[in-house]
């Protein structure tokens, strides 16, 4: 197979140039620091800080979700690799306003190791208090503690952004984001692989007529490898799996997120959305908010994920609170 063409310059400069792109497009609202940190130019004094981050290559997550009502800084690793700890330390120091800093990032071994060490170093240096709420929404695997962070991470970051903007204390923000984590489930489906920009090689292989339900954002194996099936059949499988996992129940109010992993068309997402609304309606689950788009990608992987977040008044308020960032804003 031919290598996937990418519009880039030198591969070793990708992450740095992407960060410069965000700074340019922010028109003064963001700046770079410590090489791999994107930070708000002005942070409200006395607010609880929020730092997000992870491996690059999943843009817009996590790097771009920095701004008023979102994260105060993001830390970018190399493509699909956790960022080194000194960048985490620098980000924490850059956003700390004396109220402590919350970390939100995906539950991957490499990220946990690097963010933990980075946070400890920051605390050793300045005494800043740091708490972490991992994104661990992928219900493709059974064990809660080791679940991966995928598309629902967008909701968790959004809620963390609003919580840290409003909260009086780090504990209060942490508790809200923890509640989001508890109520959030995502299931993805991969239709075709993305590629590594350094090599143009695919990140995994699927047969010409195969899809994999639950495949992870880096090609980790999922729930079921299956033949291509009609959208309605696939949607039912995914919704049934998701709903049973929490479980979501009749009378629940939810936010519903359709996330494009990269190359899937909006046409397909809308066909799936139509069926998902129908199925949730039949189950008596009320959709209070719906988001559709590319929030958490895996290069140009074809596929999508569906996330459900069970809402209470607090979570709904935080999800709907205004925010600004390069790729997602709401009034």
């Amino acid at each position: 197979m031919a290598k996937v063409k990418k519009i880039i310059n030198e591969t070793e400069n990708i992450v740095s140039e992407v960060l410069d792109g965000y700074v340019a497009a922010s028109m003064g609202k963001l700046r770079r620091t410590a090489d791999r940190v994107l930070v708000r130019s002005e942070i409200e004094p006395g607010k609880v800080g929020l730092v997000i981050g992870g491996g690059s290559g999943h843009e817009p997550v996590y790097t771009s979700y920095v701004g008023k009502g979102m994260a105060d800084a993001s830390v970018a690793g190399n493509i699909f690799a956790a960022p080194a700890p000194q960048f985490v330390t620098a980000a924490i120091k850059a956003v700390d306003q004396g109220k402590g800093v919350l970390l939100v990032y995906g539950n991957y071994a490499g990220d946990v190791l690097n963010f933990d060490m980075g946070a400890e170093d920051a605390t050793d240096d300045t005494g800043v208090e740091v708490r972490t709420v991992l994104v661990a929404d992928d219900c493709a695997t059974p064990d809660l503690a080791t679940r991966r962070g995928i598309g629902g991470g967008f909701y968790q970051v959004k809620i963390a952004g609003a919580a840290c903007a409003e909260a009086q204390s780090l504990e209060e923000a942490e508790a809200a984001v923890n509640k989001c984590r508890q109520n959030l489930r995502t299931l993805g489906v991969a239709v075709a692989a993305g590629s590594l920009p350094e090599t143009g090689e695919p990140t995994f292989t699927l047969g010409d007529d195969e899809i994999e339900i639950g495949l992870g954002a880096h090609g980790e194996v999922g729930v079921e490898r299956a033949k291509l099936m009609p959208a309605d059949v696939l949607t039912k499988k995914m919704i049934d799996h998701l709903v049973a996992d929490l479980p979501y129940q009749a009378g629940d109010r939810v936010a519903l997120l359709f996330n494009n992993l990269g190359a899937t068309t909006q046409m397909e997402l809308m066909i799936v959305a139509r069926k998902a609304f129908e199925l949730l309606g039949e189950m008596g689950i009320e959709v209070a908010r719906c988001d559709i788009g590319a929030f958490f990608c895996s290069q140009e992987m074809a596929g999508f994920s569906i996330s459900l977040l069970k809402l209470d008044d607090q979570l709904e308020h935080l999800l709907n609170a205004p925010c600004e960032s390069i790729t997602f804003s709401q009034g």
Partner: protein
Amino acid sequence: MELSIDQTRAMLVAMCDAIIENVDVLTKADQAIGDGDHGVGMRRGFKAAKEAIEAAEPGSVGELFKAGGSAVIATSGGASGIIFGLFLRAPAKQLSGQTLDAAGYASWLTAAATQIQARGNAKPGDKTMVDAIVPAAEAAQAAVGDGLLAVAEAGAAGAHRGKDATVEMIASFGKAKALGERAKGHPDPGALSTTILLDAARDYVKEQS
């Protein structure tokens, strides 16, 4: 037998070179059961470590280990950045003298095994590099009475036994975890890196003997 600061530096540089030379082997190993980036990440980290070790003006042997380990942590990224950074950095405080002797070498591996387990939470049997570093440390400690070369040889041999044992394990950590039974038949990439590092160290000690 003991290694001077400059000999220790040369040993550590040889270990870095071994990783840099084996990037393709490590890439293939991680492609089999992980996400394929172990080789590239290790090369990035150990290239930086080599530079840091060569540039260091250490007051003790331990400061050389610290310079190398810190460089790996700061540049490698991913799980292995921390794990293999600690592999070098763990003994930094203990090795406060001007030479590396048999006891020092064994204490390095023990410190690495301890700190890596403390931070990473992987236990023996989880199919990680812990399965290589733990038997390496144990074998090295048992050989302390036989001198530095015996310790280095025991360490490398222990790592190989551990790495070979990972072939039949299913993973409980990292990206190979989701593979379940499918991970069987392949060694853990990080365990493989551990053998490459300890083989290079042993070869250097042997040359100097």
